[in-house]
């Protein structure tokens, strides 16, 4: 933690960065995102298991951009997010100083995208055993049970869009749900509209999601939304051999193809 604070202080003092996006103490013994602009305030930065939010979501928020050149405390999901955002033309090399954090909490020096790519490449990207287990559980259900499970989960959805707000890849200034000519997705939070919303959201994240899990954490009614994107991530990898957030060059599952992609389901 001291190393982190020291590094943050250096960045601010040297003027290389004007704001550090990191974790600090929040209410109720939770960690929250803080935005440190003064060297002396770097003491507020913390780093422990509670710090799991994907801070990269703030990189594209106008309010944060207005604070000046950022540095960001970056665990694996943040690193992958940065690469994916770069691939999608939302970040350029040098836009953000990265304070890399290894899985065991050590500082990693990652000067540029290339370094990040190599580092991400060196880490395992599989789901955690717990995540995998939860996914398998649902996959193994009968289709009727799956339908019951999800419609029941979605029935609680309030359309508060916290999932969207927490997702670094939902950076559209006007989301498709806000479009009303045509009104693709009904505003009313009824079962059908909710299902449509979550299917659309998952499809929009297919091949882009880096599985930070924030959507699920953000959901006030505890819908395990990350399962949807995890499932698609699995499909994208098994079908097309692609993984989001591993390269800063765009190589997106749905804007590329192979002539021999599987089509056993097509008549």
């Amino acid at each position, binding site marked *: 933690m001291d190393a982190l604070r020291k590094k943050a202080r250096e960045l601010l003092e040297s003027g290389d960065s004007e704001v550090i996006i990191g974790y600090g103490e929040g209410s109720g013994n939770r960690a929250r995102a803080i935005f440190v602009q003064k060297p002396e305030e770097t003491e507020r930065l913390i780093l422990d298991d509670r710090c799991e939010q994907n801070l990269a979501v703030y990189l594209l928020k106008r309010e944060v951009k207005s604070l000046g050149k950022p540095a960001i405390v970056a665990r694996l999901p943040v690193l992958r997010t940065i690469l994916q955002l770069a691939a999608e033309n939302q970040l350029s090399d040098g836009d953000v100083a990265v304070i890399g954090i290894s899985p065991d909490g050590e500082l990693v020096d990652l000067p540029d995208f290339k370094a990040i790519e190599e580092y991400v490449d060196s880490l395992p990207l599989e789901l955690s055993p717990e995540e995998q287990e939860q996914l398998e559980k*649902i*996959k193994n*259900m009968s*289709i*009727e*049970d*799956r*339908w*019951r*499970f*999800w*419609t029941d989960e979605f*029935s609680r959805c309030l359309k508060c869009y916290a999932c969207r707000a927490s997702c670094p890849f939902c950076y559209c200034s006007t989301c*498709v749900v806000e479009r009303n000519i045509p009104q*693709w997705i009904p505003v*009313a*939070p*009824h*079962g*059908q*509209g*909710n*299902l*449509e919303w*979550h*299917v*659309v959201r*998952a*499809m929009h994240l*297919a*091949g882009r999601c880096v599985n930070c899990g924030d959507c699920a954490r953000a959901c006030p009614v505890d819908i395990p939304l990350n399962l*949807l994107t995890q*499932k*698609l991530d699995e*499909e*994208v990898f098994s*079908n*097309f051999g692609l993984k989001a957030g591993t390269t800063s060059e765009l190589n997106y*599952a*749905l*804007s*590329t*193809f*192979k*002539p021999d*992609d*599987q*089509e056993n*389901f*097509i*008549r």
Partner: protein
Amino acid sequence: MAEFEPKIIAFVCNWCTYAGADLTGTSRIKYATNVRMIRLPCTGRIDFMLLLKAFAQGADGVIVSGCHPGDCHYTAGNYHARRRWILFRSLLDFVGFDTRRVHFAWVSAAEGAKWAQVVNSVVNEVRELGPFEDYQKLARVGVE
């Protein structure tokens, strides 16, 4: 009581399947009346949201059809579409949506007979499944 007649909405590309269905007509091959066709330039244009909307609108089954791989009038639209459907189908299946109601086909401008056969078999399969009440019911969940 009369047999249940499913409502099938088809999204087809202009150059292969729409033309193929024209050929079905010019060859006077009869097929089930249940299908309503919506014409788009290319399967690449067919947004998965249109399929959701079709079901929301009360479709019991949906057909998406375009040019065979390699035949796309726009060279690659159908390849992009194919990837889209691979993911969309698996997602639908994952949320418990019965994918036997969503059908994909390659029907070329020369395959008038195949179009009739595709429509008929889809109509029969969906008739077996019965009306898509599960999905219609959803529209009431949370409102009532």
